[in-house]
């Protein structure tokens, strides 16, 4: 699109301001990771120190919580991948009654308030099934609202690729599973990857549903953060942990982006750049 110099300049300024808006609080988090005071967060900080970094890394509860979050995230993402792909395949490649409802159904867990989802699942586990809460309940909860993210991505990719490749494969004598493995799967692999990464991110930072499903023993990282947010004397550790997580996450985010830029030849659509974006779009 041709824009006047002034319009481009205005646009650039707007983007700059937007990015500043997004990042200033994160920079504040970063600054308070070095806060000398353990109890309060004043501005400007009373002093700066590195002491919280080793304390955070040595903090056993934080490390356990981090690992628990990773485990929950991986499990929830795995389930979401399976269920999301199955649903996407059904919707994109077949016609059946209630097809439009599937999209609606899949987005419901993420659209309804987290507290409702959390309490409903917790209720079902403890009162209907008589099973105690814990990591399993958390994974169930997370997987439920992560399905939509994988589903969106895969459906979008499948819609953009023609079914004719699969038909050709069938004509050549491959049965259903072979077609899936050798034709369908490769085309949607990067969409799956990007969706899985976003699903993992959603699960990793989730607090509300987790609060109601985790029970007494275990802790995910957000639960640990919440517990320590209101425990004065160690407040900066929380900021350190948050900072470290953001820095660590540069890797998967970059990966996601590279993944979505790879395109599988002719099966591609208009441009891979939009893939992560599609994960958040509604199908």
């Amino acid at each position: 699109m041709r824009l006047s110099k002034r319009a481009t300049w205005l646009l650039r300024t707007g983007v700059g301001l937007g990015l500043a808006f997004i990042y200033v609080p994160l920079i504040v988090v970063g600054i308070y990771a070095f806060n000398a005071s353990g109890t309060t967060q004043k501005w400007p900080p009373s002093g700066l120190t590195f002491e919280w970094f080793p304390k955070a890394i040595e903090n056993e509860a934080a490390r356990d919580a981090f690992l628990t979050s990773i485990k929950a995230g991986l499990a929830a993402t795995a389930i979401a991948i399976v269920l999301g792909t199955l649903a996407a395949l059904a919707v994109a490649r077949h016609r059946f009654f209630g097809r439009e409802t599937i999209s609606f159904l899949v987005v419901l867990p993420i659209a309804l308030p987290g507290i409702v989802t959390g309490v409903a699942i917790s209720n079902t586990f403890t009162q209907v099934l008589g099973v105690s809460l814990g990591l399993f309940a958390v994974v169930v909860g997370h997987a439920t609202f992560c399905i939509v993210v994988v589903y969106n991505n895969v459906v979008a990719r499948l819609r953009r690729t023609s079914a004719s490749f699969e038909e050709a494969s069938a004509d050549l004598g491959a049965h259903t599973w072979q077609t899936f493995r050798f034709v369908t799967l490769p085309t949607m692999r990067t969409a799956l990857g990007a969706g899985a990464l976003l699903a993992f991110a959603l699960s990793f930072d989730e607090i509300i549903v987790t609060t109601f499903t985790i029970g007494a023993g275990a802790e995910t990282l957000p639960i640990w953060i919440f517990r320590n947010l209101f425990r004065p004397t160690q407040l900066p550790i929380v900021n350190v942990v948050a900072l470290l997580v953001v820095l660590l996450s540069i890797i998967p985010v970059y990966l996601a982006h590279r993944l979505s830029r790879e395109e599988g030849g002719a099966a591609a659509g208009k441009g891979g750049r939009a893939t992560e974006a599609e994960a958040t779009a509604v199908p």
Partner: protein
Amino acid sequence: MRRRDAHSARTAWLVVAGLVAFMLVLAGCGSSDDDNGGSGGEELQQLGKGEGEVDLISWAGYVEPEWTKPFEQKTGCKVNNKVGGTSDEMVQLMRTGEYDGVSASGNASARLVDGGDVDPVNVDLVPNYETIFSDLKDQPYNTFDGKPYGIPHGRGANLLMWNSDEVKPAPDSWDVMLDPKVAAKYKGKISAYDDPIYIADAAVYLMTHEPDLGIENPYALNDEQFEAAVDLLKEQRANVGEYWSEAAKQISAFANGDATVGTTWQYQYFALQEEGDPVAASPASQGFLPKEGATGWSDTWMISSTAKHPNCMYMWMDWIVEPKVNAEVAEFFGEAPAQSLSCDQTADKNFCEKYHADNPAFWERVYYWETPVADCGNGNDDCKDYNEWVQAWTTIKG
């Protein structure tokens, strides 16, 4: 073709509806199995070996490494602690059945007993119980049906705290928070406790300032008394800067200048003093009580009826009232210890005196948190129960 699809679609919907109905039936069966009801729990008869860990729910500052680490070394029971901000939270957590014990205040204990979530305590298994202050034993908030349901932890009054730079002269009455004219001076800087039980604070205030209402027990309020208290708090709402339920939230509010006067616990008061913030609390000469008196709490360690680690829990209950430990606990938090022998163990030799640990007369002006019930205790049955307090609290906050 379409009719065949419609037929199979209808079958599909029927199957789905059937499954959902099945879930509902299961739910009905499941919930009715949940009836524990009443105080019928069994107390432990004999102490066995520790189970290796214990899951606790407690107030901020009650379970600290200073005394959990030695406990873990001595008993091998690893302490997992969850901090609750309000009694409601604690009751909710206990009802999940996933914890071994809780440091319950009076506005939680009765509910836990009635809901069957806690068992009576066999005090013979807690040797340090004998030397607990006598006015903490057999109290209505820790003894039910004649059976003791817990081990006292310590007690204290809710404090009036203010920023000594901003609030002058030093207040000695709750006026500064509850009298609309006086409170208006600190509009937007008042910090009140975010829990329905705070209505009792308004009732305590009215006991002195509107004696015609005839309030005797701030937790047993009839329609007229209750309405007066609620109206007072609705007026206060306009001046409140923040309602707090997490101690740390209030600490940061005072430290950052968002609040200059409020109701608090000793825990926050000492934390702010340590940070060097200019805070002062209700006149020390009066024992930190404003002239109307105050609400307070006397906390009890209770054991869950579904405790997975009962032996460790009993060991914890005995440990927390061991003279040296209870002294540490009391000094850390700033409350009166429950253990009489602790008074010889405190670092500050005048600690017990300052906190009126052995002075029952002092505690007559402190109204421990209780669970409001319909039975007023004086023959009438028309007092507001806790559900109504909760509903009213929502309308007060708006």
